[in-house]
């Protein structure tokens, strides 16, 4: 018996009925597999061919003005000010505008325009730029670079005033890898046309942040001898201790952090660690006047 495999329409055989059915199923399977693999290839092709995308646009209303931010594909961003459908002015940015909001921080009827900029990259960098409109032109009031930390606008203490909630990333990459390091909470308020660090007014929230860091530290406290022998573990413990001390420093209470280090960090590089931490906290000390 000779079977010639050809495309299905050309199969001409002298087979019994049962064998013919079996052959049919095999052919159907082959066709299904071919179809499926073609679909997968097509899908892969589609996602690898760069499509022509529409630029990302963001809109906001500010008093009698309208704002339009356009993020173009060539890494340029344009922020335009309109009134009655007429364009009044433009600003250009290298960073992408991720968020465009109008915020009345203090509920006093004096809102500002807040553009959340992102530099495009794996982590870095986030910037908050705050504008108002003077003489039909966008005027920059303040620019705060939050580096690796994003930020959010929240009424933290539910008093009606809005705050900028972010974190201090000064320890990024300092004690081991990026992921080993911890950022600590920073809360800003809008005062006299600038964002002012207001952690002292939000002590309970800072202490809650420290609680979370201490919970992480609990796991290291009773195994310090073991931890000293393992570089990764040692760096993780340093990262947590640094963040606790950094967070306390925003309340002017950094000695509490050093007390914890002196009590629980027993590794031989203790002095170097403390010295490095002191230097890092001395740069732009986070404490502000209440």
């Amino acid at each position: 018996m000779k079977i010639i495999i050809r495309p299905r329409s050309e199969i001409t055989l002298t087979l019994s009925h049962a064998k013919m059915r079996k052959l049919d199923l095999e052919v159907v399977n082959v066709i299904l597999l071919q179809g499926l693999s073609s679909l997968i290839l097509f899908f892969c092709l589609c996602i690898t061919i760069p499509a022509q995308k529409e630029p990302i646009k963001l809109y906001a209303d500010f008093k009698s003005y309208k704002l339009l931010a356009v993020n173009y594909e060539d890494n340029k961003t344009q922020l335009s000010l309109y009134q009655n459908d007429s364009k009044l002015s433009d600003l250009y940015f290298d960073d992408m505008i991720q968020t465009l909001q109008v915020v009345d921080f203090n509920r006093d009827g004096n809102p500002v325009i807040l553009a959340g900029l992102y530099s495009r990259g794996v982590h870095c960098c986030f910037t908050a730029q705050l504008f108002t409109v003077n003489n039909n032109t966008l005027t920059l009031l303040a620019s705060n670079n939050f580096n690796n930390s994003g930020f959010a606008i929240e009424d933290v203490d539910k008093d009606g005033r809005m705050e900028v909630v972010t974190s201090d990333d000064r320890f990024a990459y300092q004690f081991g890898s990026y992921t080993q390091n911890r950022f600590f909470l920073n809360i800003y308020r809008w005062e006299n046309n600038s964002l002012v660090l207001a952690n002292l007014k939000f002590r309970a929230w800072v202490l809650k942040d420290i609680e979370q860091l201490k919970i992480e530290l609990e796991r290291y406290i009773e195994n310090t001898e073991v931890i000293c022998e393992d570089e990764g573990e040692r760096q993780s413990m340093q990262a947590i201790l640094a963040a606790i001390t950094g967070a306390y420093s925003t309340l002017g209470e950094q000695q509490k952090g050093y007390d914890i280090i002196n009590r629980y960090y027993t590794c031989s590089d203790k002095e170097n660690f403390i010295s490095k931490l002191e230097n890092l906290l001395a740069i732009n000390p986070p404490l502000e006047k209440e």
Partner: protein
Amino acid sequence: MIEKILSWYNRKNFIPAIILILIIIAAVIMFMLSKHYIIRAKPAEIKAIDSFAVFVQSKKMVPVNAGNFMMGSNFFDEELPIHRVQLDTFYIEKNEVTVAQYRAFCDSTHRQMPSPPSWGWIDNHPIVKVSWQDAEDYAKWSGTRLPTEAEWEYAARGGRKSGGTKYSGSSVIGQVAWYSENSGFKTHPVCTKKPNELGLYDMSGNVWEWCADGYNASYDTLAANGNIPALPILELKVIRGGGWFYDATSSRAANRRGENLLYKSSHVGFRCAVSRMK
């Protein structure tokens, strides 16, 4: 009766008079004795009727009368939403379970004590380094149970006697709690700070305390019945009250934390509760 005795006396008929006087004296003595026996019998009778009261007294438990309260706070996300919880009467230990109490359990059940914390085992300090399961086992052994999270918060706030203080029993943390700023990096003997409105000690500070409930980072899905542990199958269990290593914020009555039920730490202990069988 006195006239009869006097007439016998006047007629120099002494024997009936003496007999009558003796009968009166005997009656008085019997009356006094019977009164004495009744008084003695009373406590025994109570004991037989209310062994539960004796039990909770022996465990130094404090009654927390039935009521409802607004659980949670608007401080932090995991304490939201603030919601009304109804509770039946229950009893809760006035102190955190001590090292001595836990050692008695270990001796009785042939268990090993946990490895000691850096300050060693001191009998009147709260037990630490016990998992949620260890705490459950102790509670069963002692005929009690762990409090539900709602019971714990209601008791910490002072139940119906609540003074609305920031911490359990005071708004001045140092009056009621051993915490980061006064502990010297270790636990302290139980019941050495001021108690709260119900007479409960160390609900704020000293050690965190295991509760019966599973932990969810919000109260969104929870029922208003605080008598039953919420989310009992979750491996993450609720601990409450803050401790010797933590700042004042952690010792607020509404503050919450979740830990794996196998977690053992020199920061975490427990206390027990019990309800009268219906």
